[in-house]
């Protein structure tokens, strides 16, 4: 049996925010997240926030992130910020969508920050827009889920998310 365990698959359409709750447990320390936005009503970045064990989205200004942006249509760029209310990004989505692969580290460890690694590829109107990014939630608290939302408040046309746990057998 593979040590890469599919533990959640979420599909949604025509929705402005998607929450996957109670998916991170003490059974795993590392999670792999694969997202695929098949379309969005208006071009935007897909952002993220974590969800606590009570099911509430963590919106406090405790997110730091840094992302290298690789674009086919203009110069590469970088973006870094601290003490934000969300982290970015799961891709710069256009009508053709965007896809990403991410890892979340130690979300249920109440003595550790929650860390995040990501790479993604999107196709807004300008061309191919890719990112490699890192983020941290600077709260030593248990994180049980994740929330996805478009930066501009518009709706996902179609969204699919698979979350895997990386099992460690002692």
């Amino acid at each position: 049996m593979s040590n890469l365990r599919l533990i959640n698959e979420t599909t949604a359409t025509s929705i402005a925010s998607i929450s996957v709750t109670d998916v991170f447990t003490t059974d795993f320390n590392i999670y792999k997240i694969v997202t695929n936005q098949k379309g969005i009503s208006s071009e935007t970045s897909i952002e993220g926030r974590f969800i606590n064990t009570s099911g509430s989205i963590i919106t406090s200004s405790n997110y730091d992130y840094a992302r290298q942006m690789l674009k086919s249509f203009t110069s590469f760029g970088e973006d870094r910020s601290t003490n934000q209310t969300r982290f970015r990004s799961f891709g710069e989505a256009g009508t053709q969508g965007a896809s990403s692969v991410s890892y979340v580290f130690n979300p249920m460890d109440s003595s550790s920050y929650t860390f995040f690694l990501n790479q993604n590829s999107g196709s807004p109107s300008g061309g191919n827009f890719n990112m490699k990014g890192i983020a941290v939630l600077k709260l030593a608290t248990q994180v049980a889920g994740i929330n996805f939302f478009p930066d501009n408040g518009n709706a996902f046309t179609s969204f699919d998310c698979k979350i895997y746990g990386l099992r460690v057998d002692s």
Partner: protein
Amino acid sequence: MGLVQVATNTVTSAVAQVDLVGITTDDVYMVTISGVKLASDQDLNFRVLKSSSPDTTYNYDGASKVLRTDTTFSNSGYVNNDSWFMDFIGNGVDETGNGILYLFNFNNSSEYSFATQEGVAVDDSNPTLKGRTGGVVHTVASASNGIRFFGLSSVNISAGSFTLYKVI
């Protein structure tokens, strides 16, 4: 994609290094590290193991982009080093290192060994979010059966989980 666990090591008291051994095929292997703490602010580095012994010769090259929140991103390139750089890690309560490596050609005695690396950590008393994304190569055509993690300047590893998987 599937993963088969080959080796794992969870550090609960300070150690000088962590070895992951068990690369015996030409498959791609994956290494995860999580919750790694060092005894003081320092780099976490890694090397290949040949017959379970570290190769400390100056044959390690790497190139990566360093993402960070405190200043402009930087390019990190090095040749003929005696190890590879993984993460910058602090020693504060909440400062840990995490990352993913994919290992290629480690078992092949006629090819160089390569790895891709993605890391994310908090270091320094600031604290600062930092991470590397890039790749490394061991410029020796030889077989390696594992990988060793250690803190630079003989700084001990005080916590963390390290796991080696075979990708199937």
